[in-house]
């Protein structure tokens, strides 16, 4: 199936010995000028790119405190060296978080620190050369920005911040990554990542209405651009037709229907994911976020709810207010925005939904904490709500649930291997290798507890698992959406 070695799943996790250069060949396609210019970046590598890159680096260090502090503070203690799923799966030492940061730090030191200017060899400082740029292009596209390393770093150094800065610098000199930049362009032009125009979207939603009617006999609506609805639902466009995503969308519709909450999707903001974050571009991230504000204003909604998605939820939870706020025109009784899991959980708590757990009896479940939900956002009003709320929903909808080993879930969760703008076929080797630690933990509960399905609440996780599960002897339909479980268990119609 693959023209590369698929890592072997071991009984106990093993830290691999370093093998230099194992993943140096892994690079995504470079963005063509057509994908660069709509984002405000040069079409191809500019002539004096070394100088432009170094100047941009200085600008970013002056704009982001995190970046500045992280570049100064690392002591090379080694705490992060065995924490990255890409290192564990590939054994390439440049996938150790500290080594990945050093690709950036070595250049920063050369141009912006006394030690690096006068004693470059001593402190490992390097000039900005083509060789360095190539290393950046390979290895900053082998970071899913999952922040697992930042949990364990004694100074909280977050490699995601450094990889975002590196990607922005590469974009600024004209060396962008095709997958991310093409997608951002599509959102600007058409409204969503998949390039689904409004009529196609409307068709899809009508199809879903018919499908649910056939299955349940109930008229569950999938409204689009309905003015005056209470809730604007913003969800990743994968939810409109990819499997298992669409089953999740059906789940949200059933929940909102059953709770009697009027809602609508927006063709202007028909995408929750904000790929501006992956490329570290504040400007692009902001432009993407402003679509959602505009949609909320145009439709006159009172609440904004996000569908199941990890990175979208990070941008929504942590940045939406910053980028596109203030949201003082919405109902102040609800947080802005809410995650669909928060909405469903509240309804379950209030007894507004009837769930027949036995509908999911053919499944034994485990739950994959998506990295950006786990380590970069929250749900509910208490720290750690992002771990408890989805699990509480699964337990309310299913009889059989078992967690994976404790050091692979919660804040220590392993990324699916496809996040951060790497969910592209040109990086499939990396994606398969990066999934290894998650697959190992999954295998553990499959053997211990006969787990049959892995539930997740991130569109990237769902797509990534559908693709990589088969490499490890699982089947692609073993990944399910959390709201798919709710959808199967929910009893529609008047309550008894």
């Amino acid at each position, binding site marked *: 199936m693959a023209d590369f070695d698929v890592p072997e799943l071991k009984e106990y996790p093993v830290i691999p010995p370093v093998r230099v250069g194992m993943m140096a060949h892994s690079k995504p396609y470079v963005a063509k000028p057509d994908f660069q210019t709509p984002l405000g970046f040069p079409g191809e590598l500019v002539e004096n790119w070394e100088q432009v890159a170094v100047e941009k680096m200085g600008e970013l260090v002056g704009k982001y405190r995190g970046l500045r502090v992280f570049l100064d503070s690392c002591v090379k203690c080694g705490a992060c060296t065995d924490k990255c799923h890409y290192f564990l799966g590939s054994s390439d030492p440049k996938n150790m978080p500290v080594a990945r940061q050093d690709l950036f730090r070595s250049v920063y030191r050369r141009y912006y620190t006394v030690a690096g200017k006068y004693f470059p060899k001593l402190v490992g400082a390097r000039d900005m050369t083509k060789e360095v740029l190539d290393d950046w292009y390979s290895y900053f596209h082998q970071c899913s920005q999952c922040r697992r390393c930042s949990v364990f770093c*004694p100074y909280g150094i977050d490699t995601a911040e450094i990889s975002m800065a590196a990607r922005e610098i590469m974009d600024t000199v004209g060396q962008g990554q095709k997958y991310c930049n093409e997608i951002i362009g599509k959102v600007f032009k058409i409204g969503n990542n998949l390039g689904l125009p409004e009529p196609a979207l409307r068709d899809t939603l009508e199809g879903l209405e018919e499908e649910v009617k056939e299955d349940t006999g109930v008229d569950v609506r999938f409204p689009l651009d309905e003015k005056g609805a209470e809730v604007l639902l913003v969800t990743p466009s994968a939810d409109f037709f990819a499997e298992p995503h669409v089953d999740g969308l059906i789940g949200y519709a059933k929940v909102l229907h059953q709770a009697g909450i009027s809602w609508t999707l927006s063709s202007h903001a028909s995408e929750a994911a904000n790929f501006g974050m992956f490329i570290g571009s504040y400007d692009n991230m902001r432009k993407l976020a402003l679509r959602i504000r505009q949609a909320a204003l145009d439709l006159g909604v009172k609440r904004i709810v996000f569908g199941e998605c990890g990175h979208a939820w990070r941008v929504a939870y942590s940045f939406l207010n910053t980028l596109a706020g203030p949201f003082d025109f919405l109902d102040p009784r609800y947080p802005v925005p809410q995650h669909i899991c928060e909405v469903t959980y509240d309804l379950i708590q209030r007894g507004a939904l009837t769930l027949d757990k036995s509908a999911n009896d053919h499944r034994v479940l485990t739950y994959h904490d998506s990295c950006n939900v786990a380590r970069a956002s929250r749900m509910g009003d208490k720290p750690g709500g992002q771990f408890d709320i989805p699990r509480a929903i699964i337990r309310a909808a299913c009889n059989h649930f078992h967690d994976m080993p404790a050091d692979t879930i919660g804040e220590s969760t392993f990324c699916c291997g496809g996040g951060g703008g790497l969910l592209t076929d040109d990086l499939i080797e990396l994606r398969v290798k990066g999934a290894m630690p998650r697959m190992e933990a999954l295998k553990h509960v499959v053997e211990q507890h006969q787990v049959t399905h892995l539930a997740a609440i991130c569109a990237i996780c769902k797509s990534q698992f559908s693709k990589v599960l088969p490499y490890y002897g699982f089947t692609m339909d073993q990944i399910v959406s959390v709201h798919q479980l709710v959808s199967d268990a929910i009893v529609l119609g008047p309550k008894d």
Partner: protein
Amino acid sequence: MSYLSVFYAVLFYLATLVFVAGVGYRIFLYARTPAPLKIPTTPAPTTRRGVALRMLREVTLFSSLFKANKWIWLFGWLFHAALLLVLLRHLRYFQEPVWTWVVWIQPFGIYAAWAMLIGLFGLWARRILVDRVRYISSPSDHLMLGLLVAIGVSGVLMKYVWHTDIVALKAFTLGLMYFDWQPLPADAMLLIHLTLVAALMIVFPFSKLLHAPGVFFSPTRNQVDNPRERRHLAPWAARLQSGDGS
């Protein structure tokens, strides 16, 4: 007054100046650089009080490091805790009369010198023995450990082998503080010890030792997790906003 005493007096003024101004300047830069986005690593506290507790746990117990790797934690914590005790023990050279609690910790400070060395050798051993840590180590990492070990060893040797005239040394340090210079005992081990300490103070603001002030400015650790409750807007980001009228 010998040239030697003058040289060391000047060296210590210079080292103190570089240390204070250098670290002060970095802190100024950290404080002045905006943090445009909320990026606490979650689960994070939702109140300022919670953040203060989180930081306290980080800097006193090294709680994240404890989660990461028990060996690095053991050696790293041992080294830092011992260094603190040793430094506090040295306060007696700068005080007359000496505070009671400084007198009280003197015997512990001596054990701490050994603990500090054990911690440093443990950390150094990892750099050599663990292939991952060897890969990420640059010459300056070894040099830094070497410097700290040499300071520790020279201090211990003065305590147990080549004693120096403590009373005269104290007169010298107090003289430095009150700008009333006094002669420094010309013992080789003392001079080595003092030279290394001055070197450490001078390299501090230019090296990874900046992790000491840096940890307090790390947004992943010091930010309150409340982005939905309070709008967080950096000055340069606010200017973008007024630009498009939204």
